[in-house]
């Protein structure tokens, strides 16, 4: 296993700057998630680590050794893609054994058998080993694709949205499985996703990537609780964090504060008492949330009551001081 360091990586595709000076430290054995919208540079970062793209500037290190000029095969990274790429004419067993049978590895068949069976057991596909890849369901195929990465015991796993083509139930199952396998094996994983749920549930640390630049790096809790910008605050959390004008709060905060953000689950919902009178736009018993409006601004709040407030009815929403995040006019956070 290995640690990974990126230093000032820039990568252009023609006139488009995909990465504008990305620096990162991924610790040995860490589950590291790159989170961002499409086009942010997540996949490019992954491909630079794997050696599939050569950066214009900057340096890639593995275990402190400079590998920037090293070809992909020698870096010993294992890639898992969004679309499972299995050999359709081979059985599950042979698909899993394939990376070990590469001429440069020369793993004895007995050892191959042991590794394949071990990986199959971990991913609960033991009973499918003799099936053709085409006889599997989508979830099973993706398990095999992940298994094929695991069987090699590489220095680093690079995963590019490996769960996004699966349905909700399978995604959840494989998410738990993936985390468990990573814990057990102590593997270093760099995982790309645009899905914030995958990011917060899987990551030891998350890097928020936007337009080729890192916005913030931290544990899921650090990023959720103390975002450094409004942008980052809006990246995590569903429904999205509320961004309210400072003018609602009179003189309560310093003058530099332009916006006050508060998470929906921290908004207090009531019929009277402190707060502002809002008009209900939409409410969902199912998702336990209500969207209401005050002075043209939509406010989202979590509620657990059994009767949903009707659209156009009035509710009182309060924003407890201890849960407020303060931002200046540039969207940067100001300590409370």
């Amino acid at each position, binding site marked *: 296993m290995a640690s990974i360091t990126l230093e000032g990586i820039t990568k252009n595709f023609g006139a488009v700057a995909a990465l504008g000076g990305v620096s990162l430290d991924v610790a040995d054995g860490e589950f590291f998630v790159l989170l961002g*919208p*499409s086009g942010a540079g997540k996949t490019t970062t992954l491909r630079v680590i794997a050696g599939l793209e050569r950066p214009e500037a900057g340096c890639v290190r593995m275990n402190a050794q400079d590998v920037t000029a090293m070809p992909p095969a020698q870096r010993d990274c294992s890639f898992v893609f969004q679309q499972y790429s299995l050999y359709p004419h081979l059985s599950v067993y042979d698909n899993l054994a394939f990376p070990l049978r590469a001429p440069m590895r020369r793993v004895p068949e007995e050892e191959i058998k042991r590794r394949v069976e071990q990986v199959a057991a971990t991913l609960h596909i033991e009973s499918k080993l003799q099936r053709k890849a085409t006889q599997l369901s989508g979830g099973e195929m993706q398990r095999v694709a992940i298994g094929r990465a695991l069987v090699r015991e590489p220095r680093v796993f690079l995963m590019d949205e490996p769960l*996004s083509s699966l*349905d*909700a*139930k399978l995604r*959840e199952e494989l998410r*738990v499985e993936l985390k468990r396998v990573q814990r057990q094996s102590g593997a270093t994983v760099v995982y790309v996703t*645009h*899905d*914030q*749920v995958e990011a*917060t*549930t899987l990551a030891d640390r998350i890097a928020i990537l936007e337009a080729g630049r890192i916005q913030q790096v931290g544990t*899921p*809790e650090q990023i*959720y609780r103390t975002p450094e910008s409004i942008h980052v605050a809006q990246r*995590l*959390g*569903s429904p999205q964090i509320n961004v309210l004008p400072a003018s609602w709060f009179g003189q309560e905060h310093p003058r530099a504060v332009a916006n006050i953000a508060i*998470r*929906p*689950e921290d908004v207090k919902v009531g019929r009277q008492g402190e707060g502002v009178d809002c008009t209900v736009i939409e409410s969902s*018993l*199912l*998702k*336990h949330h209500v969207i209401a409006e005050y002075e043209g601004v939509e406010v989202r709040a*979590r509620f*657990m009551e*059994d009767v949903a407030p009707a659209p156009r009815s009035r509710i009182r929403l309060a924003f407890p001081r201890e849960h407020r995040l303060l931002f200046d006019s540039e969207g940067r956070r100001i300590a409370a």
Partner: protein
Amino acid sequence: MAEIRIRNLQKRFADFTAVKDSSLVLEDGKFVVLLGPSGCGKTTTLRMIAGLEFPTSGEITLDGEDVTYRRPRERDIAMCFQLFALYPHMGVRGNLEFPLRNERMPRAEIDRRVSDVASILRIGHLLGSSVTGLAGGDRQRVALGRAIVRQPKAFLMDEPLGTLDAEFRELMCVELRKLHDRLKTTTVFVTHDQNEAMALADHIVVMNQGEILQADSPHGIYSFPSCLFVAKFIGRPPMNLIKADAPVTRGDTFVRIGRREVDVPRVEAPSAGVIVGVRPEYVRLLGADQGCIGGRVQHVEYFGSHWVVEVQTDAGPIKVLADKSARPQTGLQVGLDFDKQHIVLFDSASEKLLPSAATLAHQPGMRHG
């Protein structure tokens, strides 16, 4: 505008029965989602409504008129397949006009329809553009525009968002629902994705193995699943289902799980053995010796606004949706309590929902049977 009724609909392919004796009223102006795993019969049902498949027996009416054996063209229903497919060699206007030109509609009428659709979807400024350069959201709106420009009585959609990537799928869901709120055209939408169903539907029809298991509002499906299959199929993380082998009789207000007594809404029918169903958001995490059942924290997942905590108990694993301030630790001994009002019971032999004071108070939102 259309009300679609299907009565005792049945479809057999050789010795395989794809749809078993289904009856359903799809009310005028509603967005109805047929939801189920692959092979459940949802697509076959949709294809029979469209006229692409004729039933083995049964009847389909459109606004009271029998259309069971009419050809698709004679039904004035639009079948939309993949919404994202646009003709790349045509501009935005060309794509929108295409379905109308096919029908040899007069020029003036085509222009009027296209400009209506463009203003509904706020894409008027794009009419002169090519579709290849469009941003994702605009592209989806154009695709949607092409589906609605014909102004059919009803829309039938078969997994139209299936191959979109996750980001656009959510965006498209919002667009579809907004459009429906404006047009109020009866829509039947097939999917296996419960998130899509929950986000879009006025009514959800859950199917499995050719059978309709439940037809109700999203709230009804979520809170009072008609059977164990629906309970397991809807909701992430799924409903906790705890086996309590003890019998219950009418009027009981608690259920025995092992040696413990758990308060439940008043039971309205007897059962030889029940399964207790409670969703993770209605389980409370307490100190080690509190609550009605104890266990050890097995696994935790962080979601920002909350944690999902899996607790191993002697009645099996139980998932809890805990407050974000909870900071649950793996290995910790904890106690659990259930929110009585939100417990549902299932008969373990029939796997069906057992009537209780809570379930009887609920009015199903849709007629079927």
